[in-house]
C-alpha cells in the first residue's frame, strides 16, 4: 500500500496525452497533451479556439474525451465524472462562473457537499466553515450574501473557495483575470502563490503573456487543438511563447507586413486632418450588467483610413462596436457619420446613412444559419431588394450570383443554407454583403476569426481595397498581427478607454503590449 503511495508521489499531478475531443464536425482537441508537476503554477496558453478550455473541461470531468490517456497523481482518470474529479481533488474555476445567482455564497460553496443535521441543511455550520476557509485562504467574502449581489471579483473568490472547499489539490483557472481589475489580479496572484507554497498545483488558462511571465513556473502552448510546446518560464521570453502560440501565423503576419507597409503611406498625416467620416465624441456605453463598458471615448476616422483597435478582449471593444452599429443603447456622447448625427438612429437607418458592419460573432449576429446564401447576402438590406411589399427574387438571385463569384463562396449554390458552409465561407458571405453595399464607414470586428489562411489574405485584400477607395474603417481584432498589418493608426483599448492612439509607424508589439495590459498608465512611455 505504501508502495503505491510513494509511486503516486513520484507521478506528475496531471498527465494528459493524445487527447481527442470533438463537437460535431468541430475538432476541439486533436492530440492535446499536458504534464504538470505537483506544486507548480502551470500556464496553459494559446489563442482563442486553441482548445485550452476544452482540454481542461475534459480533465475536470465535464466532457468525456473520445480517446487519450488521462492520469491524475498517477491514477487513471480517463472518462471520469465531475463528481469523481472533485473527489480526486481536481477543481475548475470556469471563465463564465458556475455560480447560482439566487443562492448565497455559503450555499454555492457547499453545493453538492451539503452539511446536514437530521436531514436538514445546517446553514450555520456551512456559513461558519466557509468563513473559516475564507479567512485561511485570504479570499475575503461574506458567506451569507447572495451571489447575485457580488462583484465579479468577489464571485471569482467564491468560485475558488468552492473548489478549495471540496479539497481541491489541483486548481484549474480558466482566464481568471479577464474580468478582474489590476488590484484584484494582484490579490489573486497572492492567493495562488500561497496555494503553491502549500504544495497545491495550479493550471492557469490564459493568453496574456505578461501574466504567464509573472506567475507561472512552466508553460504549455496549444494551437489548433494540439499541444505544440512545453517551456520553462525562467528559460523563455514572451516573444518565444508568442511565436509558439501563433506558429505558422507568425509567418503569415510577416507576410501581411510584407504585403504592405502602412508606414510608407505618406498621405496618412494629412488624411487625419481632413473631415472624419466617422466622428465619435465622449461615447459612454453600458454592458449587459449595466456597468460602464465604454467610458467617454472620442475618436475620428478619415476617409481612406483604417483605425485599428487592439486590446485584450472584454475591455469595451464589443460594446463600442455594438453602440456604433445601433445594437446597444448609448448612455452619453454622439456618433456622426459624414457629419450627420446618427446617435438616435436605428440599425436600419444607420445602414442607410452609410454604415456597414462585419459583426464579431457571425453565428449569433452576422448570419441566419438556416437562411440560404442568397438570403444571407441581403440581410440588413432586405428593404432594398423589394418590388412593392414583395422581395424581388430575381435581383436577390442575381446579387447572389455576383457575390458568390466575386468572393469565391463555396459551394457556389445560392440555395444552400449558411449552416452547411465552412467557417471561412460563412465569413465570406458576411464580408461580401457588407462590402458590396453602398457605405462610407465600415466596422470590422474580428473579420478573420476562425477563418483559414487563404481566406484571411483574401479578406485583408478586400479591406485594403475599401480603404483605398476612400472608406473609413474601424478594425477591432484580438490578433495584434492583423492590427499591425492593416491599420493606419492604432488605438489600444483598456478598461473602456483608449489607453493610447498612435500612428502605425510608431507601433509594434513591444510598444503596444504594455498598453494592452494596462501596465503603462498615462503617456510618454511608448516612444
Amino acid at each position, binding site marked *: 500500500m505504501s508502495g503505491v503511495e510513494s509511486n503516486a508521489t513520484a507521478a506528475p499531478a496531471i498527465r494528459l496525452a493524445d487527447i481527442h475531443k470533438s463537437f460535431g464536425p468541430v475538432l476541439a482537441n486533436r492530440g492535446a497533451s499536458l504534464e504538470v508537476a505537483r506544486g507548480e503554477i502551470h500556464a496553459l496558453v494559446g489563442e482563442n479556439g486553441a482548445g485550452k478550455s476544452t482540454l481542461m473541461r475534459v480533465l*475536470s470531468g*465535464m466532457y468525456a474525451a473520445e480517446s487519450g490517456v488521462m492520469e491524475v497523481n498517477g491514477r487513471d482518470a480517463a472518462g471520469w*465524472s*465531475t*463528481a469523481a474529479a*472533485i473527489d480526486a481533488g481536481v477543481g*475548475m474555476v*470556469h471563465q463564465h*462562473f*458556475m*455560480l*447560482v*445567482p*439566487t*443562492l448565497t455564497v455559503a*450555499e*454555492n460553496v457547499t*453545493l*453538492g*457537499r*451539503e452539511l*446536514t443535521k437530521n*436531514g*436538514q*441543511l445546517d446553514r450555520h455550520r456551512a456559513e461558519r466553515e466557509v468563513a473559516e476557509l475564507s479567512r485561511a485562504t485570504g479570499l475575503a467574502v461574506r458567506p451569507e450574501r447572495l451571489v447575485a449581489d457580488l462583484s465579479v471579483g468577489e464571485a471569482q473568490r467564491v468560485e475558488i473557495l*468552492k473548489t478549495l472547499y*471540496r479539497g481541491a489539490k489541483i486548481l484549474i483557472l480558466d482566464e481568471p483575470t479577464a474580468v478582474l481589475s489590476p488590484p484584484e489580479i494582484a490579490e489573486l496572484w497572492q492567493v495562488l502563490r500561497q496555494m503553491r507554497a502549500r504544495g497545491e498545483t495550479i493550471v492557469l488558462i490564459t493568453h496574456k503573456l505578461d501574466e504567464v511571465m509573472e506567475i507561472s513556473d512552466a508553460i504549455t502552448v496549444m494551437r489548433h487543438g494540439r499541444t505544440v510546446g512545453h517551456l520553462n518560464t525562467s528559460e523563455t521570453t514572451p516573444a518565444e511563447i508568442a511565436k509558439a502560440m501563433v506558429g505558422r501565423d507568425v509567418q503569415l503576419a510577416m507576410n501581411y507586413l510584407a504585403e504592405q507597409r502602412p508606414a510608407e503611406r505618406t498621405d496618412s498625416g494629412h488624411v487625419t486632418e481632413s473631415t472624419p467620416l466617422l466622428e465619435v465624441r465622449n461615447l459612454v456605453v453600458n454592458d449587459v450588467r449595466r456597468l460602464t463598458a465604454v467610458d467617454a471615448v472620442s475618436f475620428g476616422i478619415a476617409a481612406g483610413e483604417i483605425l485599428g483597435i487592439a486590446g485584450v478582449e472584454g475591455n469595451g471593444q464589443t460594446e463600442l462596436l455594438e453602440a456604433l452599429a445601433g445594437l446597444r443603447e448609448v448612455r452619453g456622447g454622439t456618433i456622426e457619420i459624414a457629419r450627420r448625427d446618427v446617435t438616435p438612429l436605428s440599425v436600419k437607418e444607420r445602414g442607410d446613412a452609410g454604415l456597414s458592419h462585419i459583426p464579431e460573432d457571425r453565428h449569433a449576429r452576422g448570419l441566419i444559419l438556416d437562411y440560404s446564401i442568397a438570403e444571407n447576402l441581403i440581410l440588413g438590406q432586405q428593404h432594398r431588394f423589394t418590388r412593392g411589399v414583395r422581395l424581388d427574387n430575381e435581383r436577390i438571385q442575381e446579387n447572389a450570383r455576383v457575390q458568390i463569384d466575386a468572393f469565391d463562396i463555396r459551394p457556389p449554390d445560392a440555395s444552400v443554407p449558411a449552416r452547411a458552409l465552412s467557417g471561412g465561407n460563412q465569413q465570406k458571405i458576411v464580408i461580401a454583403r457588407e462590402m458590396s453595399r453602398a457605405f462610407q464607414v465600415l466596422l470590422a470586428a474580428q473579420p478573420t476569426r476562425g477563418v483559414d489562411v487563404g481566406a484571411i489574405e483574401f479578406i485583408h485584400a478586400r479591406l485594403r481595397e475599401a480603404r483605398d477607395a476612400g472608406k473609413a474603417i474601424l478594425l477591432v481584432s484580438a490578433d495584434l498581427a492583423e492590427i499591425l498589418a492593416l491599420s493606419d493608426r492604432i488605438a489600444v483599448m483598456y478598461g473602456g478607454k483608449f489607453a493610447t492612439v498612435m500612428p502605425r509607424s510608431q507601433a509594434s508589439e513591444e510598444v503596444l503590449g504594455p498598453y494592452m495590459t494596462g501596465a503603462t498608465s498615462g503617456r510618454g512611455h511608448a516612444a
Partner: protein
Amino acid sequence: MIIIAFLVQTLRIAIPYLFAAIGGVVSERSGLIAIGLEGYMLSGAFCGALASYYSGSAWVGLLGAMAGGIAVALLYAVTVIRFRADQVVVGIAINLLVIGATRFFLRLAFHSSANSPRVPGFGAEQSGTGVGALAHNPLIWWGIFAVPLMSWSLYRTPIGLWIRAVGEHPAAASSVGIRVNRVRYVAAAWSGMFAGLGGAYLALDQHQFSAEMTAGRGFIALAAVIFGRWDPFRAALACLLFAAAETLQIQLQGAQIIPSQFVEMIPYVLTIVALAGVVGRAVPPAALGKVAE
C-alpha cells in the same frame, strides 16, 4: 358565523389549488414548466377514484391518485428531458391526453363516459359548511401541511437546494457533480404526486369521478405559482386569494353585484399583471423551459 362559513368554504375551494400549486412550484423551480398540472390533477382524480372503487378504501384511493399523478408527470419529464421535446407543446398535449384517456377508461371500466359510480371517499357527500366538515377530510389537513413541508424541502434540505440550483443554473449544478436530470425527474414526480392529491381531493370529496372534473383548476394553480413568484407560501396565499374570490362570488350569487365571469377572471388578470411587472416584476427561474446541456 358567516365569517367562519366563508373561511371554511374558501379553504375547501383552495385545497385542490394548494396541492397543484405546490406541485407547480417544485416543478418550475427545477426548470420544468408546469403547464400539465391540469392533466396531473385529472389523472390523480381518476386513478384515485378507480383505486378507491376497487379497493373499497379511500386511503388506497389516495395511493392511486399519487401514482396517477406521478405517472403522467414522469411521462412529461421523460419526453422533455430524455427526448428534449418542447415543454410547452408536450405540456398542452399531456392535458389533452389525460382528458381523452380518462373518458376512454371511464367507459372501459364503468360503461359511462361522464361519471364513475359512487366510490368510497371522505366525509359525507353533502357535508355542511361548518368547521366540523373539515375534520372529516384528511386531505384538507394534508393540503395545509403540504405548504410548509414543500417550503422546508425547498429551502432547508439538500434536495431542495439542488432543485433550486438546477432550475436556475443547471451547468453550475452539474459542475459540482449534481445529476441535473435526476433532480428534475424527482421534482417532476413530486409535482405529479401533489397535483394528483389535488385531483383526489375533488373525486373523494364528491365520492365520484366525473369527466373533466378539474375544470381548469390546474391552470388556476399555475397562475398561483406565477403570482406567488415560485414560492410555496406565496403561491399558497395566491390560492387562498383566488379561492376567497370564488367563495365571495358563490355567497353573493343571489345579490348579482359582480357577474360571476368577472370573479372567474381574477386569478388570470392578476397573473398577467404580475408578469407584465406593473407592481414588481415576476421573474421566473432562469432555466425554466430549457433542457439541460
